[in-house]
């Protein structure tokens, strides 16, 4: 996938659940105009299949992919990766695992 001159970017992700968590950093090739969703897909598909996160529409409509990017709430699918970043789960919801939260009790829209 990545040739020698592809720029790399570091994605640090808060992993685990509300009881136990740690930060893990993945280094991935930075594609032009890739979204955080694309980055997570890349990590899950080719580096670490155990990474948990939610996606559906991938066009910013279902609002299911909300994560906290360097502390700010953002949609993973419409936010472009421009440099290193830290991702944490949406703090409004209970964490299932990693970036996957349970939105059952609260239907925000």
């Amino acid at each position, binding site marked *: 996938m990545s040739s020698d001159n592809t720029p790399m970017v570091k994605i640090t992700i808060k992993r685990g659940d509300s009881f136990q968590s740690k930060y893990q950093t993945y280094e991935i090739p930075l594609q032009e105009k890739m979204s955080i969703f694309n980055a997570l897909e890349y990590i899950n598909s080719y580096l670490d299949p155990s990474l948990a996160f939610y996606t559906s529409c991938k*066009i910013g409509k279902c609002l299911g992919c909300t994560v906290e990017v360097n502390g700010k709430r953002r949609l993973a699918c*419409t936010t472009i990766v421009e440099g290193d970043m830290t991702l944490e789960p949406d703090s409004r919801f209970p964490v299932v695992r990693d970036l996957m939260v349970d939105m059952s009790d609260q239907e925000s829209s």
Partner: protein
Amino acid sequence: MDSKYTIETYKTDVVIVGSEGAGATAAIELAKHNLDVIIVTKGNGVGRSGATITGEADLAVDSNSLYHRFNMKVGTDPEDSKENFFHDILAGGKYVNQQDIVQAHVEDAPDRFADLLEWGLKPLFVTKMSGHSYPRGVIVSAPEMIRIYRKKLKETKTKVLNNIFIHELLYQNGVCSGVFGLNMVSGNFITIEAKAVLLATGGGMRLYPITTAPEELTGDGTAMAFRAVVELMDMEFPMFLPGCFPWPEAVKGVNTPFKLASAGMISGHMLNKHGERFMAKWDPIKMEKSTRDITAVAMWTEIMENRGGPHGGVFVSLKHLPDNVIDYIMEWLPPSYLKKYGGFDMSKFLPDLKRDAVESVPASHFFNGGIKIDIWCRTNMSGLYAAGEVTAGLHGANRLSGNAFTDMIVWGHRAAQAIAEDIKKGEIYQTPLDKKQVEYYVTEALAGYSQQGDEKMQSVRDDVQDTAWKHAGIVRDDSLLKEGLDKLQNLKERYKRIRLTCNEKKYNKEFIRYLETKNMIANLECILVAAENRHESRGSHYRKDFPNTDNIKWFKNQVIIFKDGEVELKLEDPVVTTEEPDRIIEKYGY
């Protein structure tokens, strides 16, 4: 995952698989009948999965009803009628629609639209969409529809279980007794016993690597029905939208290029890498504004014959227009999609249109085929019903714009009426779960943890998508399809050698995708087999080696049934109530 597992068990009158347009509509209607209903969804809440929320969105209702019954005088045309709507649906579906289903559809559509209005939907405007001879496209906001469904489901106290992946039907002696699946959050298996099961699982667009549709639509409903020997139909007709970004990655599948060239708003030219305006070879009169079928075939031909761009698309160019005209592009009608698509700020992804073209590729957009139903959503398995995009029969070989939204509201409602009626009459009732079948499903699901082999799940999934794209895509011929079927055999073998590596219980994406991949393979098999057998071109099925529409031999539906590990095809005559095509061989696509 290890050999220890837990099964969460539920019991209800009706279980609805799918929480969006079709599923939610059915649940709201069922609540009137005092039945216990559980909705299960792959989504993290209603509106967080499925195609409904992604709609743009037009909803088709005959213009006469809009004008007279709903008093919508602007943009409508009272000259229209239900009969005209009926006719257009057949013309769009190239006559292999089931006319009894189409009849019920055009009759019910205004009533279901009335329900939505009563529940608070505010239509924006009415417009004439492609394939319709009258203005029937009521533009509605999909997020608003979702808010209405959420509100109604709350009011009716419908139980919704989120993040549930239903994987198999439970049945005995041809009678459905419930569903089996995975609670993706807890990692436990789940069984739901029910008198009636309604599949409202949407399409299988994610079988293809480029799609406009959400990630979880992997054709689960058709696949589980297929495995349970439920009849499917018209599987050779997955529809592609001609004109989406192949690149950049973030907006892959977004349909702005279609709007720039073909949607009738901005007159972009489609060019191959030699600068040829290739539509001239296919439709010299309408060019880029040709039918979606022909446009998709034309684009695909250029791409597959290596005349596309570096990202796998053809080019859409505005450079035939003077710069100082392009300056006004945001004032053209309606320009909003150039600024915004879903949550994207499109200006970040469009090049300077005075200088560069955008690349454009057809993307998997809709499944015309699916589970065979009668006019009350009954399948050939007692106790099993289906509604919405997961079904076949209404759209025939291709659907009209806006008619998928109408499909889900009309047929979700009809399914609910039929289920309520059948339960009341005692035609269906709770039959016992077959414990052995549950055990078998558990063992099958967990096979990826114990079977011998070193295949990676992701590599099989990637290759399934690649095979679908190359062999079950838009332009087909005998050798492509046969090669596809060979590759399919190989993929089925490789699937049995997948070794899963992730042992997490909670939201284990590798495991979820492993189960989905099985469904994608089943859908691919159905598409390839049906496409290989249909020796003609019709609607969204185009064969280079049989380029005409043959109404002498192929005014037929292909029904698929899974028997002794093999796919069997049955040719059936479409149900005709009023209109028949001329029994001649015609040029494709007109």
